[in-house]
């Protein structure tokens, strides 16, 4: 068990060094991704290179780099058309529905951009097992069969066994259970897989190691390589699938998207059986940071790296064209119309009936914890189902069988 350190002690630790108890694995993927990211100069690509990448039948990391470049922006419509073709080829008209369930918002990290930052004065809460069951029963009552369990990153307040018990309860109500919790060792992932979880999402936030250090001044999350290797440890622990994502806007989004795609690419090559997927979150205003509405958007870490909707679509198309078989989730950080249009075109999975607060799904859970970020799409499950059908898509609640 790691000892809890004071912030001053933690600040002295290099963000590239492992803390006690953190498992190290034999992998060169971090070095490969970081080297490629460092060498990626998006502005050097030309329209001709984008056209070549569009025409290619098998697309290389170099083609992916071209798709993410400023030069590709004028080819966005063609990229979207090709991406839609690839999505249909690999996923047909299916679009998968799920919802996230936040079971705890306690956090030990200081991530300056996050509503769960342990310094933020928000209402902290952790659901007990009875409350988790009530929440899950309420969600299952909407017809959903897949759930993504989330916690803030606190090993002390939501330890592995607490999460494992939540997975076991989820198994009673859902056919697919995913996790988006703090990175852990492979033996922890194995335990959670035995409890019923089968896929793991870890956002690297930014692959810009220097920026990462400034954004994560303290806490376990500060250790960049431990977070980076989480997907690999999850697969070593027996998880079937892993998801990748950068929080677009924290740093140069083109470079971060490039690194995210390469990270997934190298994992897929090393573990060809792994089901890989992407999430594509943009930085959104957070709850309970000081100041007015303007302040919340004009936060100090936002220095000209904001991502427009057009650019977000460009990134999603680039992911799809580079790794056409990968799943892709579009979150409720985006508005309904955007989500409708990317579902089935680039995205293959959409959340519905989302609340990022703690204890907000069931009327029987009376106390509620604050949410991590504001959502832009409040539609319930039937509304999302109807919207997907109107787009000619087949809403799929489950495409999974535990074996």
């Amino acid at each position, binding site marked *: 068990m790691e000892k809890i350190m004071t912030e001053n002690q933690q600040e002295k630790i290099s963000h590239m060094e492992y803390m006690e108890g953190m498992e190290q694995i034999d992998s060169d993927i971090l070095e490969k991704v970081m080297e490629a990211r460092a060498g990626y100069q998006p502005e050097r690509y030309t329209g001709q290179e984008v056209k070549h990448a569009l025409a290619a039948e098998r697309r290389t990391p170099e083609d992916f780099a071209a798709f993410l470049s400023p030069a590709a922006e004028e080819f966005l419509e063609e990229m979207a058309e090709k991406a839609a073709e690839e999505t249909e080829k690999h996923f047909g008209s299916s679009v998968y529905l799920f919802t996230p369930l936040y079971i705890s918002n306690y956090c030990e990290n200081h991530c300056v951009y996050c509503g769960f930052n342990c310094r933020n004065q928000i209402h902290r809460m952790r659901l007990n097992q009875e409350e988790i069951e009530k929440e899950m029963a309420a969600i299952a009552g909407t017809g959903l069969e897949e759930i993504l369990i989330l916690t803030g990153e606190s090993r002390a307040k939501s330890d592995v066994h607490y999460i494992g018990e939540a997975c076991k309860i989820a198994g009673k109500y859902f056919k697919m259970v995913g996790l988006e919790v703090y990175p852990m060792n492979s033996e922890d992932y194995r335990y959670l897989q035995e409890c019923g979880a089968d896929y793991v999402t870890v956002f690297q936030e930014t692959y810009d190691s220097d920026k990462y250090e400034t954004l994560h001044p303290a806490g376990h999350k500060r250790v960049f390589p431990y977070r980076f290797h989480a997907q690999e440890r999850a697969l070593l622990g027996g998880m079937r699938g892993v998801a990748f994502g950068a929080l677009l806007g924290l740093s140069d989004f083109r470079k971060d998207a490039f690194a995210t795609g390469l990270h997934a690419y190298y994992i897929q090559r090393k573990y060809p059986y792994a089901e890989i997927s992407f999430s594509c979150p943009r930085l959104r205003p957070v709850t309970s940071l000081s100041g007015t509405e303007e302040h919340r958007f004009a936060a100090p870490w936002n220095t000209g790296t904001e991502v427009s909707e057009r650019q977000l679509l460009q990134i999603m198309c680039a992911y799809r064209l580079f790794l056409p*078989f990968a799943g892709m989730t579009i979150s409720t950080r985006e508005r309904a119309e955007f989500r409708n249009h990317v579902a089935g075109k680039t995205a293959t999975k959409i959340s519905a009936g989302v609340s990022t607060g703690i204890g907000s799904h069931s009327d029987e859970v009376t106390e509620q914890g604050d949410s991590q970020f504001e959502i832009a799409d409040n539609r319930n499950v039937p509304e999302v189902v109807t919207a997907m059908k109107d787009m000619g898509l087949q809403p799929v609640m489950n495409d999974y069988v535990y074996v």
Partner: protein
Amino acid sequence: MKDDKLILGGQEFQSRFILGSGKYNVELIQAAVEQAGAEIITLAVRRANSSGEGNILDYIPEGVTLLPNTSGARTAEEAVRIAHLSRELGCGNFVKVEIIRDTRYLLPDNTETVKATEQLTKEGFVVLPYMYPDLNTARDLQQAGAAAVMPLASPIGSNKGLETRAFIQILIDEIDLPVIVDAGIGRPSQACEVMEMGAAAVMANTAIATAGNIPRMAAAFRKAIEAGRDAYLSGLGRVRQSGGESSSPLTGFLRD
């Protein structure tokens, strides 16, 4: 041609067109089955257990034989467990063994497929294994009790057609089991060609699911498969490797 039946696991089928059910908007499945004239439809067990929105089983017409597949399995052990689940779900005794350890190309693992086939045939399943077209594996599958072999024409969902033509022909020539060409067939003309080669049946999914007009494409496949079968049974005219041939042969003037 009325007596020309496809026999799988002792069951007779008039149609030689097996329709896949993945990738569809479920409302279109019924129309596709009807236009395809399909008597067998494949179904991923992982989709069959859906009790929520759009349960695929509700859209498959009665009288159609379900061919559940073990899609999602990465090992023989997992495939066997999925097959058990499919039987418990009431999907019958047929099972298409599909074991894939590669998410990029979705190529089957022949070694694990043989293992699963051995196990499931012992348990009384009618096993139709999806395989890479390799003669030795096909022989092993036959030995293991498979009811047919299902070699791929090209990677699943690719619509690339008969990339493995020469190897499928070897299976047709050498294996005493129905050879059902599965995966990669993208056009009715390609379906027709494999039937002309002597394949027992063709399975298609993506080619139809991603067509502009799904029921019409299903009908086009039905006709192509019937035409190819007729051509095969008729015995194709032979092909000269080079040059032409006069209809009045050069030796026609000789006496005796």
